[in-house]
């Protein structure tokens, strides 16, 4: 039973002590700091994760042996209930060489290979029609237009329509319009009929990352040579390497936002790449080789359902592979980006450690406030005992005090936290403009706005955590009070 006098007295004690305001402000401040700092970081990390997810298929069957055929696996994968669509993918590598006087600088020995912005490319062969069903390929092109417009303050690209090609044959090779290719042929001195009429474009298209634009500014339809190495399918003997070259037409810029993906990858038709690897579609013995199969799972699947689906698909695919081949993998989007996401998460956890220390010090503030209250109120404890207060009731006075401080601190802190998260960019801009003070220097983020994402669950956790912590630290003085000998307390001066 909680006696009625406990809250009654607790409120009176708190109201008559300005120092309590300090305790509340201390708690509110720490709650506020935790919300704002974490919101910025969650926003930052969240944006990165969104970008990564946007660049990634929901599930990916990978680590397949050489010479795996899509046809061979497609039916088995699509039979699984979690699978909505599949798309074949072929990863390879190559060098891109523009025919025009190259502005690709000579590669520098101290450039990190993974951030290559020159002629290297990780090639991603796709079937555009299928890929659009599985990933956001269709959104990557408008995104590049938007990103570049933001970066340069004016539209840089015309709307890119290459993926809206109605003719499935042309779409599958991402061919640029006939007239465009003819003009480019003429301009670059390449073989072309005298007039554009009746000319059919021949070059397959290639999509480059918007990040290559400063180094390799291209016009749609401009020819590019792709150099690569293909391997003759191994019979019994050694596989032999042979270099290959194919002419491609620049078909557009894309942007997924996933830095590593954008910096490394060039997207081209899978059939073009297959031909490079010795599997030309017109050869009678060729197969539709893939290195991966991208899967779009049904929407709204729970994590467990997806996990079960991954296991089933893995087993089904493995059964169809040659018995000697290594186990294949079925990865969700996070597993596909494991290394990158781990590095990002680690920075976030460092920040949370710091925030934990903030909360710890805030707990000390509550403790100090309440402890002082108990010390100042020794005599009252004796009085309360004399007029019939039970030890528990007396302890509860101080516990209630802690609860009120914690709750008010949490409410104010959360309130201000929500407000400042909402107006963070405005306040930051205002301070930067009027006083040249940048709370969150934009250069640290390299973004037009400070990303800011306050998760309701986090706000609730922090608020409840503050209240719980207040109760926890209030428990010590409360227990001290309840154990006080009333006679001693009465004679305390």
């Amino acid at each position, binding site marked *: 039973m909680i006696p009625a006098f406990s809250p009654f007295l607790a409120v009176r004690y708190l109201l008559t002590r300005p*120092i309590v305001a*300090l*305790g509340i402000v*201390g708690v509110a*401040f*720490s709650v506020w*700091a935790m919300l704002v700092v974490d919101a910025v970081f969650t926003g930052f990390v969240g944006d990165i994760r969104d970008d990564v997810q946007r660049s990634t298929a929901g599930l*990916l069957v990978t680590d397949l042996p050489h010479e795996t055929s899509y046809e061979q696996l497609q039916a088995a994968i699509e039979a699984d209930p979690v699978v909505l669509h599949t798309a074949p993918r072929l*990863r390879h*590598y190559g*060098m891109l*060489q523009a*025919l025009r006087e*190259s502005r690709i*600088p*000579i*590669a*520098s*020995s*101290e450039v*990190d*290979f993974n951030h290559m912005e*020159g002629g290297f490319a*990780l090639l991603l062969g796709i079937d555009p029609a299928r890929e659009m069903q599985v990933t956001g390929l269709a959104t990557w092109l408008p995104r590049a237009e938007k990103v570049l417009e933001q970066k340069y303050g004016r539209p840089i690209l015309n709307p890119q329509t290459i993926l809206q090609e109605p003719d499935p044959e042309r779409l599958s090779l991402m061919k640029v319009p006939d007239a465009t290719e003819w003009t480019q042929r003429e301009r670059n*001195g390449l073989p072309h009929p005298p007039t554009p009429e009746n000319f059919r474009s021949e070059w397959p298209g290639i999509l480059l990352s918007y990040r290559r634009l400063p180094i390799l500014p291209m016009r749609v339809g401009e020819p590019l040579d792709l150099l690569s*190495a293909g391997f003759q399918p191994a019979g019994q003997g050694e*596989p032999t*390497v042979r270099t*290959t*070259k194919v002419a491609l037409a620049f078909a557009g810029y894309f942007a997924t936002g*996933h830095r590593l993906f954008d*910096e*490394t990858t060039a997207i081209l038709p899978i059939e073009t790449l297959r031909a490079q690897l010795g599997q030309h579609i017109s050869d009678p013995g060729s197969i539709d080789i893939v*290195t991966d199969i991208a899967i779009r799972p049904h929407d709204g699947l729970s994590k467990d359902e997806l996990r079960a689906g991954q296991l089933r698909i893995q087993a089904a695919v493995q059964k169809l592979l040659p018995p000697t081949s290594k186990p294949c993998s079925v990865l969700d989007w996070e597993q*596909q*980006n*494991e*290394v*990158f996401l*781990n*590095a990002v998460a*680690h920075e976030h956890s*460092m*920040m949370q450690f*710091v925030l934990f*220390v*903030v909360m710890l*010090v*805030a707990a*000390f*503030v509550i403790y*100090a*406030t309440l*402890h002082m209250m108990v*010390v*100042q109120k020794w005599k009252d404890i004796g009085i309360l005992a004399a007029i019939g207060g039970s030890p528990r009731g007396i302890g509860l006075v101080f516990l209630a005090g802690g609860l009120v401080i914690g709750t008010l601190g949490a409410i104010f802190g959360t309130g201000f936290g929500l407000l400042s998260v909402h107006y963070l960019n405005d306040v930051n801009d205002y301070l930067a403009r009027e006083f040249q003070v940048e709370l*969150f*220097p934009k*250069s*640290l983020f390299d973004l037009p706005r400070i990303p800011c994402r306050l998760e309701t669950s986090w706000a609730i956790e922090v608020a409840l955590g503050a209240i719980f912590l207040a109760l926890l630290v209030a428990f010590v003085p409360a227990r001290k009070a309840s154990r006080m000998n009333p006679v001693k307390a009465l004679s305390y001066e």
Partner: protein
Amino acid sequence: MYRLFLAIRYLLTRPINLLGMFGIALSVWALVVVVSLFSGFIATVEEHVHSASADVSVSNLPAWAKWSKLRAALADEPNLSAMAPRLVHYGLIHHPGKRPAPPPLPGRTALHGGDQPFLFVLGIHAAEEAAATGFGGWITDPDIAPELRVKDPQNALAPQHGVPSVLLGVERMRAEGLRPGDTLVLTTGVLRTAPDGTKSPQQVQIPLVIAGAYKTKHGGFDGNNLFVDIGTLQQELLEGDTDAVHEIAIAVRDESQLDETADRIARIVHRAVDRGDQMARGTAQTWREKNLAFLQSVEHQRALLKIVLIVIMVTAAFLMLATLSMMVTEKTSDIGILTAMGGTPLGVTSVFLACGLTITAIGVLLGIGVGSLTAIYLEEVRQALLWAFGIDLFPLQVYNLDRVPCHIDPLWLVQVAGMAFGTGFVVSVLPALRAALYDPLISLRGT
């Protein structure tokens, strides 16, 4: 005298003041440890990057740049101690008999590369390179297993039985199970001009034999670069032009004048390659400038953490303000007595100010002491945490480190102490002023 005496009495009889002290100590501790960790990380990264870089690199040279001309021009630079020409190209390496795996998924690859068959190909002149960079040390690094070492470090890139030699990063050798003497094929392309003036890329295949491994401290460099003799690239890619150069590695005598030297070198290079059309290209960058983006990203993180860490100090300030204010409240009757005994308001103020500053001082000393110790033994702390809770404080392998880096910057310690004292002073002055403004009669009467 009575002030200090009273201040110390007050503090000793109030254990709660320890809490304020502890709060300050905790905030100072966190500021010292976290920032030292990041400073150490930056210092280590810089050291690693520097170990794999020339002091000054001349790059972005135009195709018509000539080594003989540039060498003669640069010889006048007084701060230059050695220079070496480099040709830089790129290509795919392939081991006969093995099919390479497809390239890794972009988010699943090692963060600094090294696990794909694409590499930069550096054509160097071994003896000159050894004079201008740490090349001599890279091929004799004690971490390279004896069976992977270059047999004859003096002639590291000498052809073997007529086949050009190649040096690979030790991690790549280990990961792919390669040995000196194994053969590789480098596949690359080069833009050639046909007799009719049209340009088209031509494939080039160069058979190579592995001479051994090299190791710099910069894993990102080792994973992405291979060394061949400059003559090999001149022969295969540049039609035997023995005077071609893409990059110049320069060692300086006096590191403290690095930036000025780089500026002078840039001007020399511009003059030397300018054909009179003001299109002169060629840049001279210090090793720090070359790796600016990477180094800056870590420094940005440190700056961001500093902002957040200040929050701890503000919270600790609340804590001290609370404890000190309470002390004043509790001591109202003492204040009356002091005033009655002839203490001036200033004297009363200073008693409480002294309390606050003593708390701050002890807190700062404690925080800096324990903080420095924690920072110095951070690796041991990390291992203890890993052993006890399985929490890894810092992903060493991601950054290619063998222990948690730590660099305690005395200037930062002074800054932190100054910040803490400033905070301590402000939060002590407020209650102390309140104490001085008490009416002695009211405070004597107590309630």
